[in-house]
């Protein structure tokens, strides 16, 4: 579309990729010199600054209003900390620090969710990722390294290929974003009157239209296929509160998906129980097992 900006984008992405490649741990776990790290940090920082130039303030940004100013400040600080923590996650040589930086990424993302009004998603992310999964990571990492750090923990596996793939993906994303910036906006923005050209109909609305279909057979088939389930909007076209809306759409619109995920998890649970060693632990006060006494 705009060849100039495309070239600039490519250049910025290459800068970022080069920087991250230099920052990544050595392939065989050896230490890199400080110059390399400084060069990598400078390149990656330049790439980040280049990306900042793509950003333009939102159209309704009015810095005289304190709440808008505050949310803008929070948005940029959460985004910056998410990106920074992300880079630190992949480039740290100590897996403990990697896990902690990852916790930082999760927390910043939760903050962004909160700013977007997705409160349940924010709390869920913190509980599931920061509260459970990363703690388990830390647990395993700390237990696994009782006798000093292992080489495989300090080394990066194929850093070049990884950086190349990731930044190709990033390039594709940026090109898509630049394209959509000029596309018509405002499909299904909550709170706004719906734009009939870009309006994405939900199952229930399709069913309502086809209630008036002339052929009776088709109407019955459609009514069965598109059961009037739920909607995130109430009767008066207001958004439902987060949790109620989420619950209804999960258990009405996406019931099959939820059931499938549940069955998969249940199968995994049974497998975990089956492959765990069922040997009974020896506890204080138990009679001593036969054959172990010296």
């Amino acid at each position, binding site marked *: 579309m705009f060849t100039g900006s495309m070239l600039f984008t490519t250049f910025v992405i290459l800068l970022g990729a080069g920087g991250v490649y230099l920052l990544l741990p050595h392939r065989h776990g050896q230490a890199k010199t400080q110059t390399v790290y400084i060069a990598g940090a400078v390149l990656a920082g330049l790439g980040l600054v280049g990306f900042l130039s793509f950003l333009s303030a939102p159209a309704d940004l009015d810095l005289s209003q304190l709440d808008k100013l505050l949310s803008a400040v929070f948005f940029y600080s959460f985004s910056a900390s998410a990106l920074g923590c992300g880079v630190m996650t992949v480039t740290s040589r100590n897996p403990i620090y990697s896990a902690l930086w990852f916790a930082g990424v999760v927390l910043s993302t939760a903050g962004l969710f909160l700013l977007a009004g997705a409160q349940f998603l924010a709390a869920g992310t*913190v509980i599931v990722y*920061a509260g459970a999964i990363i703690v388990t990571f*830390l647990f395993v990492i700390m237990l696994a390294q009782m006798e000093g750090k292992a080489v495989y923990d300090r080394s990066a596996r194929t850093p070049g290929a990884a950086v190349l793939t990731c930044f190709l993906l990033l390039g594709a994303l940026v090109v898509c974003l630049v394209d959509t910036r000029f596309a018509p906006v405002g499909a299904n923005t909550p709170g706004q009157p719906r734009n009939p050209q870009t309006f994405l109909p939900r199952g229930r609305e399709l069913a309502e239209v086809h209630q008036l279909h002339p052929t009776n057979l088709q109407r019955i088939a459609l009514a069965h296929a598109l059961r009037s389930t739920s909607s995130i909007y109430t009767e008066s076209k207001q958004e439902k509160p*987060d949790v109620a809306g989420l619950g209804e759409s999960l258990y009405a619109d996406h019931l099959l998906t939820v059931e499938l995920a549940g069955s998969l998890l249940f199968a995994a649970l049974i497998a975990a129980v089956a492959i765990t060693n069922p040997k009974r632990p020896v506890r204080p006060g138990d009679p001593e097992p036969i054959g172990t006494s010296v």
Partner: protein
Amino acid sequence: MLLVIGIVLKILIVVAISQGTVAYLILVERKVAAYAQDRIGPNRAGSEFGIPFALLQPLADGAKMLLKEDVVPKYVTKPLYILAPWIAITAAMIGFAVVPFGPVGPDQIINFQIAPNVNIGILYVFAVGSLAVYGVILAGWASNNKYAFIGALRSSAQLISYEMPLGMSILGMVLIAGSLDLSTIVDWQDRHVWGVFVQPLGFILFFVSAFAETNRLPFDLPESEQELVGGFHTEYSAMKFGMFFLGEYLHVITVSYLTVILFFGGWDLPYFLDAEQTGLISAIVKVGVLLIKVGLVILFIMWIRWTLPRFRYDQLMDLAWKSMIPLALVNLVATAAIVQLIRTYWV
């Protein structure tokens, strides 16, 4: 602008009051311990100035924490060693953002809550509470000390295990009240009955897991002095140790608030107070009622400390995984079934 100033003021007041309360709770705890062991306890700090009941003892305790030598051992992982107490205290502090300290609603003069209209209130408290384990696990690992490390491992296993019954035990109350917002749950109890009467099993499970989550006796295995010389905070001294201590007491306060709000009607006093009273005086009375209830729960928690002996570690794990989680599941399914039946046939 006025709104922002109000919020900042509220945050400052809540932080100041809760920190001050923690100092005096330590005094109360020492007094309760003394009564339980038939001795006198702290009784003279301040008597020179004519102040009774050793009311200056918290100041003396605080000064001691601040003035002691702050030892940082040579072989610790320094950044994490310093970060851990900060995480402990921050995680304990920010949970207060959604706890209602009194009546909350659009027609109230003052909203006694830092962040009103958070419709996931209780989830937020749990999300923040689940971050507290970082303080413990990092402190134990960064100390580079086997006792501290074992303490941290024990503690994180305990915290993760008891988070599940804790979360599941409140779901019954959430189902009945139909909201995750703490003030809505209080309103429901005001209009009907206190939660402890409709969810007795849920209350017991919640309270027991709350003990485990706050590392209070009989679940204080992470710092069992006899075997682990203090557990995860063995290597901490002076104010860094004090911060862990402070964080623990803040957790006790949060848990007491949650207990009162979820199961004992919050600011509700049957036949005297109800949601329609919105004047300033009734608001202050309601805050007083809530505070008295919270104080009673805290006293009960301290009383338990000197009543029950400590669990063995495998007993602790068995209790969580083999008794409390199944019971919480049964409670949840039964509540869901009953609520569904009532909604279908009686309402």
